[in-house]
């Protein structure tokens, strides 16, 4: 607690100095702003435990934190202007309305501006954010959340039970869905209705008991009822409203999104005054931006460029293992892959370790052992496969494999780290074995259509992510999370058993029983091998050492995780 108070005091002092100076220019509001800041920071002590990163932020004196626009001017300046941080990513969301956008990229944008009831932390554990307390159902149906008091959206309206109810009602409204609103969360959770118990207590009630519901509370941004209730969809698409640490300023599509610090933020004022997200499609250009000091963080770094970043003392390389499981999907309903031994053989046939080491620069760390990755949930008895072409050959021969038939490996050209190179390396391994294999590149929309329509007639590279929670992860091969074609487990011998056990885990809320079932399901999955597990997708970031920002495993880009300090500029 002492360290906590210490950290807060330091931030207040630092913040006050910066604030007064800037406000002197604006002439006027300095006193009240400083007071507001004090009040806001006081509020954080309840929810922000000391952080691992506070050592680095603590060592920075106000003078050292002065912005020198990333090393361009060598002379250190004592004046501390507004602190600005620029992040460059390869793509941007097509809309900023979270209930309209389906791509994963929107989370990386909105995490700075909007908040969930709960959030995954760095260890993939679920932590409260807007919720002060959260409770799993005792009746299997009712999820109860008590919200922090005194939280406000930027327009001053309260973040309360009514806002949670509004969020779900908006997402479930049939008229809205006709207009293209496509938020999958309430449907996946099976939400029936939302009860406002009192202004700060809200109950989300599902129609049927389902263990799927719980982690998805980390995925539904709570919306401001007044704003989202009065604006049209083409307005909310370009200008979000939220309760988060940074406020939306402007968005030039295809170029950049600007945000400014929310001085009234309920966890305290963030240190970074201006946050800019730039859209830069070309990876070489992004690296050039980092090198020039025009960007502080760049995403989607090509692993081949990693040594360039590592060799430069101004930068550091950060990698985040994501929850995407990269795998080869095997259509078990096709004659050539119907025999389980043929699928098992593929596990031995591909030198995954070599692919990880050479093609992916060693960043995915290790070959994926089971489809479940959340700490505490993987079945400890399952061993990872090792490369053994002879074993593969004899298994294939035992399965009566026809070596003359053509084998295709479908993939998209984009959508993962070095995906095309990985596909080529896999096919090269299959060719070495004696298969007539080749890579077939599909346009990403064609690929997705095929995936969804269950039309793949041969191997394909896939990647599937799920909220980190054992009972949800075993749902991936069942189609319960959508994409019902990606699994093909139902075509296997043990398919019915798998689906049966899975139904049990969906309605079992007892922790020990859940673990037991999840373990059984993993064993069944590995036995049938409807996927050849490869590795966890990695995102690489190049980071200017002036900031202490670190990526996270689940959301990748977050500037203020629960239980931590906000991202700082330290040099």
């Amino acid at each position, binding site marked *: 607690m002492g360290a906590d108070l210490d950290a807060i005091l330091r931030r207040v002092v630092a913040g006050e100095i910066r604030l007064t100076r800037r406000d002197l220019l604006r002439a006027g509001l300095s006193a009240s702003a400083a007071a507001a800041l004090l009040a806001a920071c006081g509020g954080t002590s309840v929810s922000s435990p000391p952080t691992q990163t506070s050592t680095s932020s603590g060592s920075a004196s106000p003078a050292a934190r002065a912005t020198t626009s990333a090393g361009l001017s060598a002379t250190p300046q004592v004046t501390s202007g507004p602190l600005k941080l620029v992040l460059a990513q390869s793509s941007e969301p097509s809309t900023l309305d979270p209930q309209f956008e389906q791509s994963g990229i929107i989370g990386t944008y909105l995490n700075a501006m909007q908040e969930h009831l709960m959030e995954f932390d760095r260890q993939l554990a679920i932590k409260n954010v807007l919720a002060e307390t959260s409770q799993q159902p005792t009746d299997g149906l009712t999820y109860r959340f008590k919200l922090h008091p005194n939280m406000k959206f930027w327009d001053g309206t309260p973040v309360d039970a009514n806002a949670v109810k509004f969020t779900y009602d908006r997402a479930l409204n049939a008229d809205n869905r006709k207009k293209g609103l496509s938020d999958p969360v309430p449907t996946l959770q099976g939400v029936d209705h939302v009860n406002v118990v009192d202004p700060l207590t809200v109950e989300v009630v599902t129609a049927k008991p389902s263990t799927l519901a719980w982690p998805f509370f980390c995925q539904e941004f709570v919306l401001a009822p007044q704003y989202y209730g009065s604006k049209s969809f083409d307005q909310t698409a370009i200008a979000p409203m939220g309760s988060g640490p940074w406020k939306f300023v402007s968005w030039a599509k295809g170029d950049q999104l600007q945000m400014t610090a929310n001085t009234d933020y309920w966890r305290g004022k963030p240190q970074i005054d201006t946050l800019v997200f730039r859209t830069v499609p070309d990876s*070489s250009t992004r690296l050039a931006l980092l090198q020039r000091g025009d960007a502080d963080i760049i995403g989607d770094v090509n692993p081949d460029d990693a040594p360039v970043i590592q060799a430069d003392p101004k930068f550091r390389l950060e990698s985040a293992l994501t929850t995407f499981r990269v795998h080869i999907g095997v259509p078990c309903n096709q004659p050539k892959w119907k025999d389980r031994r043929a699928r098992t053989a593929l596990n031995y046939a591909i030198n995954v370790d070599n692919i990880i080491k050479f093609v992916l620069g060693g960043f995915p760390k290790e070959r994926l052992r089971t489809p479940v990755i959340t700490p505490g949930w993987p079945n400890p008895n399952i061993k990872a496969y090792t490369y053994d072409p002879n074993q593969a050959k004899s298994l294939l021969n035992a399965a009566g494999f026809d070596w003359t038939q053509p084998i295709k490996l479908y993939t998209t050209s*984009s959508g993962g780290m070095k995906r095309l190179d990985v596909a080529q390396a896999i096919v*090269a391994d299959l060719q070495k074995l004696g298969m007539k294999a*080749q890579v*077939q590149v599909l346009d990403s929309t064609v690929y997705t259509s095929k995936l969804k329509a269950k039309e793949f007639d041969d191997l394909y590279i896939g990647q599937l992510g799920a909220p980190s929670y054992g009972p949800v992860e075993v749902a991936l091969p069942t189609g319960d999370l959508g994409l019902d074609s990606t699994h093909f487990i139902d075509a296997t011998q043990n398919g019915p058993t798998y689906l049966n056990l899975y139904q049990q885990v969906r309605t079992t809320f007892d922790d020990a029983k859940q673990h037991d079932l999840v373990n059984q399901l993993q064993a069944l999955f590995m036995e049938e091998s409807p996927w050849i597990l490869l590795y966890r997708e990695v995102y690489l970031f190049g980071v200017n050492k002036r900031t202490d920002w670190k990526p996270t495993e689940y959301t990748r880009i977050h500037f203020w995780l629960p239980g931590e300090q906000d991202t700082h500029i330290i040099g």
Partner: protein
Amino acid sequence: MSLMQTSSAGALGARQETSRTGGRALLRGLLRNRLSLTAALVLLTLILAGLVVPFVSHADPTATNLPDRFRGPAWVAGGSSAHVLGTDGLGRDVLVRIIYGARISLTIGFVAALIAATLGVPLGLLAGFYGGAVDAVIMRLADIQLGFPSILLYISALTVLQPSLWNMILILGIAGWVIHARLVRAQALAQRQMDYVDAARAMGASNTRILARHVLPNVLAPTIVIASFSVATFIITASSLSFLGLGLPPSTPDWGLMIADAMHYIRIAWWPSTFAGLALSLTVFGVNVLGDWLRDYLDPRLRIDS
């Protein structure tokens, strides 16, 4: 990018005399011009390498060897004589890929140019010779084709047909017909009014015969020149599509694809993109020089003061 050289077409008149000069004169002219000779030799070497090496060598342009990736050229530290021009991101031999790539890249350029001319010349002849409704329909089609932002046309057509070498060639070729059609139409219009056409008609020659025997030979020379220029354009366009991830299957040893792919690691390994780029540039250079020379040769007015 299919809109190339339309007006170098305009700069070309119909040269009745040129098509009669014969192959020997052509060769003699070539030997006199040092630049063109060099270009021709470079092209010939690449074509020969692309044709012969795959038959006499066992090297595999798609064979990967991961631990051997990013090996520099033989004269650079870390390079080895096993890979004279180094290896790429999957440990494939750059030299082998460039030699095999000659076949692919030149096929793209030449076959697409051939398709474009085969489609464009007859359509242009018909439009110019018959005029009226035929002309109107064909020329409106040409306008539509020109008005369509070409890269969008390629991209949407490739998503319909699925990317492959022959689909790419087909799309590039089909989209390239307009230049030929426009040029040939203008020539045919002019020829239609010529006395010899009237004479032929008076002697009872059919339209088909007049077209084939009299008009076609006279429009052939500019067509060949335009085609030679578009070879280069097609190769470059194909590489641009590869850069956008829409081109050929990833292991294809195509120069454009090699450059596009190697641009992603240019800071780590400069050699794959540089050598593939050199090969591409040399070819485009060679084809252009030959095209220039061909035009100078087929266009006697340009030789007046030289």
